[in-house]
């Protein structure tokens, strides 16, 4: 009995009841297809988050102002340290550190922009220094950056994000135009190139203005929200992070336990974000794997029916000399063929599905997910087909022949 003949008998067995075989395959198809698709969507979204974060610039470091940690002082003899403001002076001090090329103190606020009352739009406004654009990898599609002199004189000038610009000015040229920010006129000096969606909301519905004018007109002179520090190179980021922590701790008279700031680099954000998205991917893939398991149970079910239906045929085959091993091989091959064909079709459907954008995410197929899902589907056929096949192989020929 050659393997080719076992295969031929199995194909004949499956094609005897095509609808039933097709429906059983569908269970595996859905399981394998969804595993591949879900893993691809998870991978795609984690890549888009990574792209968004790395577009911040590999060598830029963000110092965030926080409320400080109260837990740090439980055993300490010193009193609770009041969180101190992150100030422009802090930023200037950081600029003096050896690995730092530029600092951009930042205040963030959200305001309504309008031109003469007809159209208005809510945008997030960043007040900062000219170096901000380079640190954030922002580029201008029109106009120019504001100058350090304009910062010093608190000039009312603004750079619009591409979406904010088109919302307010439509197709007209915004450069030189006047925009009312919370009713205060600002002159548009530049428009940013579009950055697209980062998966975290539009990155284009923004405006950037000199730090001094934003504090003057909009936010007041409280703490900075953060300071963007530009390291000399991406290789020096770790060193510079240490320098920043040391300088700020010294200036704020703090220890590591009660810091009122947080230092984030692109790489540290990246690792946090990718670990979060991989957790989601694993969760979703587990759910998809459960559907594969359900498909496998479908195989067991249908093979049990098949074995019962073909009891007499099994009896005949045994009477004319089929050994238990041959019968076992035939039915296991049938089950495995079901799951393998279902698995291959599932890969095709899954890969086709990744060509579409799903909820704003472009799925990226993870190459190892294909052999993994296929291998798993074959395993499902072997395991879930094994029990019915074993039942067929163990039938007593005299009883099987008598079966009506």
């Amino acid at each position: 009995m050659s393997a080719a003949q076992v295969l031929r008998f199995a194909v004949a067995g499956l094609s005897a009841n095509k609808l039933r075989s097709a429906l059983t395959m569908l269970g595996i198809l859905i399981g394998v297809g969804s595993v591949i698709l879900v893993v691809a969507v998870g991978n795609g979204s984690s890549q888009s988050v990574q792209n968004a974060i790395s577009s911040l610039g590999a060598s830029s470091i963000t110092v965030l102002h926080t409320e400080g940690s109260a837990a740090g002082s439980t055993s300490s003899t010193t009193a609770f340290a009041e969180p101190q403001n992150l100030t422009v002076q802090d930023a200037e001090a950081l600029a003096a550190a050896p690995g730092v090329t530029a600092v951009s103190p930042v205040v963030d606020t959200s305001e309504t922009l309008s031109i003469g009352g007809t159209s208005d739009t809510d945008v997030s406004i960043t007040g900062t220094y000219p170096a901000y654009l380079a640190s954030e990898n922002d580029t201008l599609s029109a106009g120019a950056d504001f100058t350090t002199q304009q910062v010093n004189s608190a000039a009312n000038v603004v750079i619009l994000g591409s979406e904010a610009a088109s919302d307010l000015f439509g197709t007209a040229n915004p450069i030189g135009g006047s925009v009312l920010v919370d009713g205060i006129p600002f002159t548009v000096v530049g428009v940013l190139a579009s950055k697209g969606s980062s998966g975290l909301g539009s990155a284009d519905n923004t405006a950037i203005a000199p730090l001094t004018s934003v504090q003057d007109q909009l936010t007041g002179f409280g703490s900075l929200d953060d300071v963007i520090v530009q390291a000399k190179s991406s290789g020096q980021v770790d060193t510079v992070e240490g320098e920043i922590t040391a300088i700020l701790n010294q200036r704020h008279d703090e220890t590591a336990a009660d810091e009122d700031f947080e230092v984030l680099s692109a790489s540290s954000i990246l690792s946090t974000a990718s670990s979060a998205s991989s957790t989601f991917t694993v969760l979703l893939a587990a759910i998809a794997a459960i559907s594969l398991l359900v498909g496998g149970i479908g195989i067991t079910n249908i093979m049990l029916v098949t074995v019962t239906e073909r009891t007499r045929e099994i009896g005949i085959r045994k009477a004319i000399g089929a050994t238990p091993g041959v019968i076992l091989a035939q039915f296991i091959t049938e089950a495995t063929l079901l799951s393998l064909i279902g698995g291959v079709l599932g890969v095709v459907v899954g890969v086709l599905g990744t060509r579409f954008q799903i909820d704003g995410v472009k799925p990226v197929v993870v190459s190892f997910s294909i052999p993994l899902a296929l291998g798993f589907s074959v395993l499902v056929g072997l395991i879930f087909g094994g029990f019915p096949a074993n039942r067929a192989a163990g039938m007593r020929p005299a009883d099987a022949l008598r079966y009506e």
Partner: protein
Amino acid sequence: MTSAPYPVIRLESVVKVYGAGQAAVQALRGVSLDVAERDYVAIMGASGSGKSTMMNIIGCLDVPTEGKFLIDGIDTGYLDEQQLAVVRNRKIGFVFQSFNLIPRMAALHNVELPLSYRGVKHAERRSRAEAALHLVGLADRMNSQPKQLSGGQQQRVAVARALVTNPSLILADEPTGNLDSKASRDLMGVFDQLNAAGRTIVLITHEADVAAHAKRVIQVQDGRIVADRRVAAPDVLPPLLTQQAVSS
């Protein structure tokens, strides 16, 4: 004509009990029987007499509870299911009452099947199956599926399948039970020819005119052999063929 060292089949005090304890049923109560090479034996009995149990034991489809069953000198009591399958494949050709062809499989492939299980190569399998179908007069229906064939034709495919492995014994269980009288006569004619050509045949039947084809008629009743009538010697032509030869 030299006689074989062993009888083709030998039953020694075979007892077969189904069930256990109170519910135990003795289907065979000590049956001893030798069947020689080239013999043509009809086993007759009413339903419930134990003849189907005998057929299962002779066919290696079931094993005796007590006693011994030997085929070509091989004691089947020492064989496992795997080895019994090989014995069935090599030593026995089955013909059943309900034909028992595999559905959706052409006549030729049905006949090839026992050779497949034996591992015979494709070309040889094909030519032997074609020869066997030719012998039963179905050379023109090789590619027909069972449901496209009449009962008589299906039973002749089954006979071809039984022949194709060149077995020591052809074992037929009520082979004419589902056939009309014309098809029955044709089929029994095929059996007579096979026996004349040297095949050993055991027929299980309850019809006297079927048993009339055999050289030896055994009556079974309540699990015992109650009569064993020899009509003709094993190495002569079967009785009905002899009559035809005389009358023509």
